[in-house]
């Protein structure tokens, strides 16, 4: 293997275009004769749609097309489950759910037109607390797709003998931790240009993390063959997981295909916040036991991830949280239960570290509290339990190489002794 580049600085291939202002993000491309698209989004978190009246919107001069659920051939998309609608037909499950889309001669007209779409909502009580939503008597948010329970996913991990573990524990720390919802806030709001090319293919230019998936979902929703759809990835202005789901791709594609006109769409920052996934807020219930020598002997953890209104990547994210629940520490007796729960909150999906970030708050805080209870330094507490070659994780994986944690902590010891380590 050629390792010559390791440790050297390589100039980005796309760097010059970016510093000169030449790079094309999707908002920067246009087609002659393009129309402008805008989306009406629900202001309610949970509602039944009685009717959608588009007459006033369609009558506005300059409006070329108004689209609702009935115009979508196969009205579903999603990375793991197709439980999200392109345009909502009956059931609104979160603020920001798309209801109707307009194509018009200018952005101004398109935005005026969506304000004229009349939606008759029957507002329903929302489920905003995942632990409430888990209860057996909570109303099911996706009965057709996900069954009678809002628990979308549960991963139990069991290792060793909990009874034996607690018997050995000289000190036990039990705490509850909560992490907050986060938005990626990538700097470039979603934008798209969709058109039918000279070969009769639907072309969708978009900033995406997942072009081949977008292509499949566009083709599925529109009832086209894969070979009729081309997704061209433009420069991506930050993503951090937030561009792994469908945003405007299908709506723009639907309008371009139906009207045979180029469609340009750009989210405002507000629309961007309302429409893409979030980092899972998690509740982490941790009970950790250690001997007086500072060796971890038992962990019982319950992790509840708020999936929000749609599944997106929730099972995978919550699975990763479970797998990382012990942190980089050897614990012989482990009971972990990790859940993804549907609610009426904005849907959660991929975001940097994909579920591995949230448990850090819990397991590292537990280590600090155990160290304090045992009169050990936080560093020593970690060194006595840290993974090394030969360690077995909670999921039974034997670590055979490249386990640099102890070495890394030892390298930090002089620094910690000066200011990092309060004790």
């Amino acid at each position, binding site marked *: 293997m050629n390792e010559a580049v390791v440790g050297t600085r390589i*100039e980005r291939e796309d760097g010059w275009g*970016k*510093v000169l*202002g030449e790079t094309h993000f999707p908002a920067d491309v246009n087609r002659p004769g393009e129309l402008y698209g805008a989306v009406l989004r629900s202001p309610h978190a949970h509602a039944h749609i009685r009717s959608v009246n588009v007459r006033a919107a369609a009558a506005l001069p300059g409006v070329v097309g108004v689209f609702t659920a009935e115009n979508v051939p196969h009205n579903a998309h999603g990375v793991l489950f197709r439980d999200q609608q392109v345009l909502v037909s009956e059931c609104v499950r979160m603020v920001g759910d798309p209801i109707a889309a307009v194509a018009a001669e200018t952005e101004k007209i398109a935005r005026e037109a969506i304000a004229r779409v009349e939606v008759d909502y029957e507002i329903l009580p929302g489920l905003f607390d995942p632990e409430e939503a888990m209860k057996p008597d909570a109303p099911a948010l996706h009965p057709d797709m996900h069954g009678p329970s809002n628990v979308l996913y549960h991963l139990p991990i069991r290792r060793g003998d909990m009874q034996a573990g607690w018997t050995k524990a000289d000190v036990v720390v039990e705490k509850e931790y909560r992490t907050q919802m986060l938005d*990626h806030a990538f700097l470039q709001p979603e934008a798209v240009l969709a058109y039918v090319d000279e070969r009769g293919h639907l072309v969708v230019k978009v900033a995406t993390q997942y072009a081949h998936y977008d292509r499949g979902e566009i083709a599925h929703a529109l009832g086209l063959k894969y070979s009729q759809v081309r997704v061209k990835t433009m420069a991506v202005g*930050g993503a951090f997981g937030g561009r792994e789901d469908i945003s405007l791709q299908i709506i723009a594609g639907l309008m371009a295909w139906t009207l045979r006109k180029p469609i340009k769409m750009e989210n405002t*920052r507000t629309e961007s916040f309302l429409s893409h996934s979030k980092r899972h807020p998690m509740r982490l219930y941790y009970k950790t036991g250690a001997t007086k020598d500072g060796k971890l002997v038992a962990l019982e953890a319950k992790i509840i991830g708020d999936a929000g209104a749609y599944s997106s990547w929730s099972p995978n994210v919550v699975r990763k949280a479970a797998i990382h629940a012990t942190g980089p520490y050897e614990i012989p007796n482990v009971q972990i239960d990790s859940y993804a729960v549907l609610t009426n909150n904005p849907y959660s999906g991929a975001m940097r570290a994909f579920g591995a970030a949230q448990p850090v708050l819990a397991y590292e805080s537990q280590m600090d509290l155990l160290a304090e209870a045992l009169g050990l330094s936080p560093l020593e507490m970690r060194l006595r339990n840290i993974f090394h070659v030969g360690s077995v994780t909670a999921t039974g994986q034997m670590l055979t190489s490249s386990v640099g944690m102890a070495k890394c902590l030892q390298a930090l010891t002089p620094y910690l002794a000066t200011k990092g380590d309060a004790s």
Partner: protein
Amino acid sequence: MNIELRVNEQDFRLVVEPDERLLDVLRNRLGLIGTKEGCGEGECGACTILMDGKAVNSCLVLAAQAVGHELMTIEGVGDRLHPHPLQKSFVELGAVQCGFCTPGMILSAKALLDRNSQPSEEEIKEAMSGNLCRCTGYDKIVKAVQRAAEEVAR
């Protein structure tokens, strides 16, 4: 309304709406797509341009307000054959990631270097405080401005 704008040392006669933002005129009427819109409310700095050498958010300026002022966008800063030292240092030091904040960053830095060719690290951070980078590349951005300042001084 009819207006005249001077952008990147070129004069343009334009017909614009009275409520049209300078950002939209630059992007849509003049095709200067290097100026980006990230928030539309003056928070992110992606639409930064220079107005008489001062960094401004072009989303907060009406096109009509720019009449009689000297405007510069990223397209006027340099080109492939003659890049500005800032453009060179941003590429060489890896201060570019997704690139969406980059034009605004470079223009804010240029406004600083044009009035203070030897800024301290604090002065650089203050001058760039109106420009957000969500890839969190701030450290390299500050270093790139320092490197460019050294080159400008030479």
